[in-house]
């Protein structure tokens, strides 16, 4: 694909796995599910897409994977336009969809081999075997899928998505309704993929997961990308910190003299919580501590806590409403 148009040159930018530009989707009924979405997913990163129900996460993923037609804008995967050069683009992509949909009557082995063939790859029983072993599916390889539990079916769907050795993997809420063990197995697999340089884009409602696993986080709401940020940076930038003081003597209420500070009582008055902006010029901690001792309040211990991604996320979505 040798073109000299600036768009193609941009699409082929090194280090970009998926490039979304001006993407919009209006469904047949007239509902606009995506609006002016611009997004770059870097090669080899783990990107978490967060957003409330109906935000447009699945729609966005479906467009990249070729299941839904875009109404406006362009998407490239590994430099290939997903509509004009769909073959080259889709060969690179694996998808674990949100819904559990499997061919009930097929065996695990056959359905995974089928997926590999569908993506035009030559048979490779050794690879499929390794894949099934990694996902603890090996002893189920000859079972019909309908005989498997829901968690096992989800593993099968992951195996199908990985059957053709994709370079870009989409996981649409992979951990919804999944037990602890499977979740651990899955993160193990994800970590392994990442070490091999596979780009991973996942959506989840478990924000701790994004916080722990993702390099970057994107927040989408009502079809618009609200923010894209390094996870750590986001935590630092938007994060509020809380100073928690374990009081020697419990308090009934926050003393009048301290009312100008953002103080709350917790743990039946045994903890005094001070919320402050960790990025601010002055945190106000020194002043607070001075006033506390002036008011005769003493404490046994203190700790600080950074607000979780979940709180940041809730605040963002709320502020956009």
């Amino acid at each position, binding site marked *: 694909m040798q073109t000299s148009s600036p768009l193609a040159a941009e699409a082929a930018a090194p280090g970009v796995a998926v490039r979304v530009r001006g993407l919009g989707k209006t469904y047949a009924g007239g509902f606009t599910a995506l609006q002016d979405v611009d997004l770059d997913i870097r090669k080899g990163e783990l990107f978490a897409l967060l957003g409330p129900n109906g935000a447009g996460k699945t729609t966005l993923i479906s467009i990249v994977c*070729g299941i839904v037609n875009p109404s406006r804008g362009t998407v490239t995967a590994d430099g290939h336009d997903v509509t004009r050069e769909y073959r080259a683009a889709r060969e690179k992509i694996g998808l674990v969809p949100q819904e559990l*949909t499997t061919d009930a009557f097929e065996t695990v082995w056959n359905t995974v081999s*089928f997926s590999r063939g*569908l*993506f035009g790859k030559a048979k490779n029983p050794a690879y499929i075997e390794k894949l099934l072993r990694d996902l603890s599916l090996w002893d189920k390889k000859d079972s019909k899928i309908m005989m498997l539990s829901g968690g096992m079916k989800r593993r099968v769907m992951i195996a199908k998505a990985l059957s053709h050795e994709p370079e870009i993997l989409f996981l649409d809420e992979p951990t919804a309704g999944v037990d602890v063990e499977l979740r651990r197995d899955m993160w193990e697999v994800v970590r392994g993929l990442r070490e091999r340089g596979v780009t991973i884009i996942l959506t989840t409602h478990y924000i701790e997961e994004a916080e722990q696993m993702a390099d970057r986080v994107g927040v989408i709401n009502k079809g618009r990308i609200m923010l894209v940020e390094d996870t750590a940076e986001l935590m630092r930038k938007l994060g509020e910190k809380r100073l928690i003081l374990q009081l020697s003597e419990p308090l009934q209420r926050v003393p009048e003299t301290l009312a100008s500070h953002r103080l709350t009582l917790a743990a039946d008055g045994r903890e005094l919580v001070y919320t402050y902006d960790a990025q601010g010029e002055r945190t106000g901690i020194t002043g607070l501590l001075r006033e506390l001792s002036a008011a005769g309040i003493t404490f046994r211990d203190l700790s600080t806590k950074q607000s979780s991604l979940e709180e940041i996320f809730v605040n963002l979505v709320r502020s956009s409403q």
Partner: protein
Amino acid sequence: MNLRAIAAIYRFEMARTRRTLLQSIVAPVISTSLYFVVFGSAIGSRITEVDGVSYGAFIVPGLIMLNLLTQSVSNASFGIYFPKFTGTIYEILSAPVSYLEIVLSYAGAAATKSIMLGIIILATAALFVPLRIEHPLWMLLFMFLTAATFSLLGFIIGIWADNFEKLQLVPLLIVTPLTFLGGSFYSIHMLPPLWQKVTLFNPVVYLVSGFRWSFYGLADVSVGLSLGMIVLFLAICLATIAWIFRTGYRLRT
């Protein structure tokens, strides 16, 4: 061409056939045998010969056509409807396969299955009546063209249908009646003159006539016309499918 994908879908569809062997092979064999008992013996004792061919032998091409049409339509429509219904279509849509490859593999598998069935019915018939095939290559060509055309029609129905009722509707209300009224069990010359004219609007007449000609050299309409008509249906189906693919109709939202 993603040949591996075509092979994968084709094999998947054929495996589905194997799983439903009883329904897909045994049932038609039994119903064919019943036709011979009912039509061959009961009616055949009254109509002994049609244009010099025993009635039992006369109905064989029609019977094969009847099965070829209905099975091609139902196999192909179900084959593409089912993944839409269960949601597994997501994988086909996200794979590097073109629409052409999708239709080749689904319709190809459906056509293969119904041709196999046609041959089984032919063999079953040979147990009941003395058969004669004057133009075997033409017979195979008619079989192939019919299976291919009606598998494409089935594919279109499978794409169009958004519930099981619609999936059954076209075969039940259109394909089966047209086949029964298309001269499968009689020569249209046996009809009153007005009905002979009306019948010519039934496309199945041309298929049965051409197919029967390949057996006994007997035809209601000229062989060239038969061939022309089936090629016309094929062209109409192909054009419809091309339109479906261009617009993404009912496959991609």
